[in-house]
């Protein structure tokens, strides 16, 4: 019973858990519920991915209606992979959260946090699992609305303005996406992605479909904070509660990228997307400029969260770059970096969350001497940071490897060179923190600072271990990513 | 109680008119809905003579056509003003006596005043209404007291 309905339960369980959290209105009970639901989602995701790897893509008809009319949930290699990523990060963040939100969120709002978190998770999982274009929009909004709430829970009042700013940008983005979907519906008369893909052929060259693609691309670029549409992100990440930042950074923008990949490769088809439209000539330069500019801005930030936020903008550039190669290797690189970046950026933000818990600030200067005071946390930061730079043994290296391989395969030397150069920018901003944390004397009287509690260190440690593990064993990441890439590239032909 | 029953009957009638589906299921939904509405409005404490003017309904129905005619007339008058290039208005504030005994009556009077363009009721007091009138004619019409009397008649002796 559970097994055959897993695709539905994947979304329904966290969705149901959210109102139960409200019902209890008690932080602790809500935590238990949220954790249980998240764990379930993780288990379901893993089970689904294993099924897909075994027997190929799964289709599930919601309400038992046949695909074009009813809503279809569809799990293929890519979505299975991203499902595992999102729910896995959910578990890590949930395990991490109690101690962190205790400091950063008012006690009476804890249940709200868990509720919004579950809704956000629901939305993200829904986006990934659904095979219905309009459903994507609905889930996109569920996750977006709950993330506005999550961000606004931050202690600083600027969390409010940041959430507001994000709301404006996010709504414009999703409205664009909605227009794109609506136009597609108009031209094909269906909302089922596979169905649209099958019917788009004869109308592909019409202006309406071009407009649909343009609207869609702009909208999703806002959602994933592709440079220069990233302006909402730094503030949102900087002022949100630390766990929220970690979760959003690891999942939300990633899922937006998923939507981009899904639509361009499954619905429009890479031929249309990259040859009929000027998207290719636009996406890659934007990605590259984004990588360089955002990384450079990151170097000059005073707040570590902000710095990492700008780094995220840059990293999205890498993922989009991978996609814009339109080759199996490039797409593999993009997909695998989507996963890898989630691990390391999640790890970095969790480390910052530990620091914020203890010193109540994320200013770089306040990190002085933390290398000794919070050795585990800072070690985690360093490892994840090295991964961000792309040092071997870490996942970051694997991503860069693929991206550069893709560039070399295509003979795009400057691109390869730029990717490598940008690693140096990463060195610069990561190293600033490391230098201060390890090599600068802490201010007087800061002896009370101790290591973060084990309940936070363990989930963070898990991410860091994953950062290294998947840097050594790439079968589960690059292997699946390649399968997904081949499937995506081949599915259209 | 009188009002509750009156409201219940009206609600059910309205439901049937709206619905158009007369299967037992839907009708039972209708009954349940009416009951729920009654319960809620009762809890809200809004079921009284003001909400359910059972006593005056009949006379109200006679008043309405007259009011409609007044509305048309005043509409024409104001429309003429709007369309004339010189915009011949002479706005003024006036007090007009309101002889109604009950709130409902006074409200009907005030709304009737507003409903006829050319006059707008501003403040409703116990025995008079402050009105903004657009022209001398509108003022004269109102001050003739016809509408006041008509509404008093609607109110009856209740």
């Amino acid at each position: 019973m559970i097994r055959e309905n897993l695709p539905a339960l994947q979304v329904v369980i966290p969705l149901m858990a959210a109102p139960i959290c409200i019902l209890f209105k008690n932080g602790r009970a809500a935590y238990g519920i949220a954790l249980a639901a998240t764990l379930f989602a993780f288990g379901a995701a893993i089970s689904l991915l294993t099924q897909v790897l075994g027997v190929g893509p799964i289709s599930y008809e919601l309400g038992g209606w046949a695909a074009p009319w009813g809503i279809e949930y569809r799990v293929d290699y890519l979505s299975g992979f991203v499902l595992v990523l999102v729910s896995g990060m959910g578990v890590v963040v949930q395990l991490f959260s109690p101690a962190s939100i205790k400091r950063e969120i008012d006690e009476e709002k804890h249940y709200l946090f868990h509720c919004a978190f579950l809704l956000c998770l629901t939305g993200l999982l829904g986006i990934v699992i659904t095979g219905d274009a309009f459903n994507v929009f609905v889930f996109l909004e569920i996750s977006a609305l709950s993330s506005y709430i999550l961000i606004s829970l931050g202690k600083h009042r600027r969390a409010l303005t940041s959430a507001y700013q994000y709301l404006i940008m996010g709504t414009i983005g999703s409205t664009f996406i909605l227009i794109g979907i609506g136009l597609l519906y108009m031209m094909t008369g269906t909302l089922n992605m596979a169905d649209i893909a099958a019917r788009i052929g004869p109308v592909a060259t019409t202006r309406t479909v071009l407009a649909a693609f343009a609207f869609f691309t702009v909208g999703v670029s806002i959602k994933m904070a592709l440079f220069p549409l990233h302006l909402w992100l730094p503030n949102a990440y900087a002022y949100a509660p630390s766990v929220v930042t970690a979760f959003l950074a690891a999942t939300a923008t990633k899922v937006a990228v998923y939507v981009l990949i899904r639509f361009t490769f499954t619905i429009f088809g890479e031929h249309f997307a990259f040859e009929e439209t000027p998207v290719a000539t636009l996406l890659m330069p934007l990605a590259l400029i984004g990588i360089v500019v955002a990384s450079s801005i990151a170097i000059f930030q005073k707040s570590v969260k902000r710095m990492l936020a700008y780094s995220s903008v840059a990293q999205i550039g890498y993922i989009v770059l991978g996609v814009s190669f339109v080759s199996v290797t490039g797409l593999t690189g993009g997909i695998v970096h989507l996963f890898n970046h989630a691990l390391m950026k999640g790890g970095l933000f969790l480390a910052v969350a530990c620091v914020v818990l203890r010193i109540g600030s994320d200013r770089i200067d306040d990190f002085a001497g933390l290398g000794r005071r919070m050795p585990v946390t800072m070690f985690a930061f360093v490892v994840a940071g090295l991964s961000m730079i792309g040092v071997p043994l870490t996942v970051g290296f694997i991503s860069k490897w693929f991206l550069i391989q893709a560039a070399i395969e295509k003979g795009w030397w400057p691109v390869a060179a730029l990717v490598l150069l940008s690693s140096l920018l990463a060195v610069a901003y990561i190293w600033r923190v490391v230098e201060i944390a390890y090599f600068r004397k802490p201010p007087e009287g800061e002896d009370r600072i101790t290591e973060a509690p084990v309940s936070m260190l363990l989930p963070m440690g898990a991410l860091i271990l994953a950062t290294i593990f998947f840097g050594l064993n790439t079968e589960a990441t690059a292997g699946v990513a390649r399968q997904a890439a081949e499937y995506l590239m081949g599915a259209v032909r | 109680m009188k009002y509750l029953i009156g409201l219940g009957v009206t609600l059910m009638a309205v439901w049937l008119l709206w619905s158009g589906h007369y299967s037992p299921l839907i009708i039972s939904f209708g009954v349940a809905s009416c009951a729920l509405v009654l319960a809620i409005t009762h809890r809200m404490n809004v079921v009284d003579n003001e909400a359910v003017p059972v006593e005056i309904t009949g006379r109200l129905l006679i008043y309405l056509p007259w009011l409609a005619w007044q509305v048309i007339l005043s509409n024409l008058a104001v429309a003429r003003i709007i369309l004339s290039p010189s915009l011949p208005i002479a706005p003024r504030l006036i007090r007009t006596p309101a002889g109604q005994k009950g709130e409902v009556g006074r409200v009907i009077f005030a709304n009737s005043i507003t409903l006829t363009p050319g006059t707008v009721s501003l403040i409703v007091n116990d025995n008079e209404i402050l009105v903004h009138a657009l022209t001398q004619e509108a003022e004269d019409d109102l001050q003739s007291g016809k509408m006041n009397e008509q509404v008093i008649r609607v109110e009856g002796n209740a």
Partner: protein
Amino acid sequence: MTSEFALIAAPIIPLAAALLVSLSGKIPNLRDSFSVLAGIILFGTVVSIVPDIMAGGRPAFTVVEVMPGLALGFLVEPLGMLFALVASGLWIVTTIYAIGYMRGHEESNQTRFFASFAVAIFASIGVAFASNLLTLFMFYELLTLSTYPLVTHQRTDEAMRAGRVYLGILFTTSICFLLFAVIWTWVITGTTDFTPGGILAGKAEGATVGVLLALFAFGTGKAALMPFHRWLPAAMVAPTPVSALLHAVAVVKAGVFTIMKIVVYIFGISFLASTGSNQWLIWVASATIVLASLVALTKDNLKARLAYSTVSQLSYIVLGAALANQAGVVGGSMHIAMHAFGKITLFFCAGAIYVAHHKTKVSEMNGIGRQMPITLFAFLIGSLSVIGLPPFGGSWSKWFITMGAYEAEQMIPFAILMVSSLLNVAYLLPIVFRGFFLAPKETSDDGHVGHVSDHDGPSPGIWKIGALREAPLFCVLPICMTAFGCLVLFFYASEMHKMLLPLGAP
């Protein structure tokens, strides 16, 4: 102990040492014994592999396969064997010396120092035994990272600045060029394994080979090929044992080792020579040899002078590799060891002089030989070996490199090698001359010249017997050992040559 076991044990030993050192930070004697002990065990372990290699064995061990054709693994071959021997052997002496130096100098953060030191050796062993480019690259970067705390040990603004230059150049070159070259190689050949005869033959041609070689050569910033040599003099702010480690033991040797290894096992010397792409590298190396020597002449600061000397000497090795023939490759490889012993002796001496007299400038060293005869005598031996005069090790390696240039009919580099030796004489021997034969200057007597020092009196452990004023025993002992090593290597050169000969096999 089988070679495979030794191969697995070799990296683990320094790693364990790093752990033990950090844990025993509160008890300095225990901590330092761990360091020394680990050094001895490691050296023993490495030596135990030698017979197998001499017999043609190639012990190997794969840790994990990251992607198909992309693994993390170890394999011992003659060149790596040599480098491992040098690194592990000199670790012992350097550790002993560092103990004396750090204690004599009452340095802070000694635990971190020795722990980083052990990690650096771990990385060096990893570089030495790497079985493929990926593994090599990884340990290469780890070596950079682990030596950063050493370079910036003083924590002064100057040190931090130097640290940034150090990281900046090494990371920039390795990430932008070396990594690029590694991935490119992989894309071309589908492998990164070091294979006798190279892997590029038949897969790459024309300009690609030249560009790849450039990427590898300049990507290996640790080889200090001009114009990417700046980090080396900058890193001189570090305490002297660190300089010794950088120059003689681990860092720069890892650089030239990498170039040598890539030339031999990735390009393959016959393939490289056949393409002619090595020509430009010969010229760059030759130019670096001369230019760096000239710069060294102008430096008054002793460590800076030695640093530029190193830049120059490293290019001998690169030149040997670039010649791409048997004599050049073997000679270059031998020079890794020969220069290591010579240069470490020189640095030890510089450090000893600093510890005992707080003198850093060549111009202040008049008459110092009278106070520190042992040290200065060792300095002389080291200088002679670096210059390449018998009966010291350096003479052999330089001989082979020169032969290589001759065989390759590279007459101008051949001439440069000759001239360069004269330049070596010019910047090294005057120091000895000053020390022994010139009268000390009045002003520089009481030791306030050293820019790092805030000591008023002599540091603890300084020998003072009459006019003698030598550095502590822990400093002097290693100096004697390495100076003696220069001599010993002269006589063991044939063994070394025999071991390295397979490198030149076509």
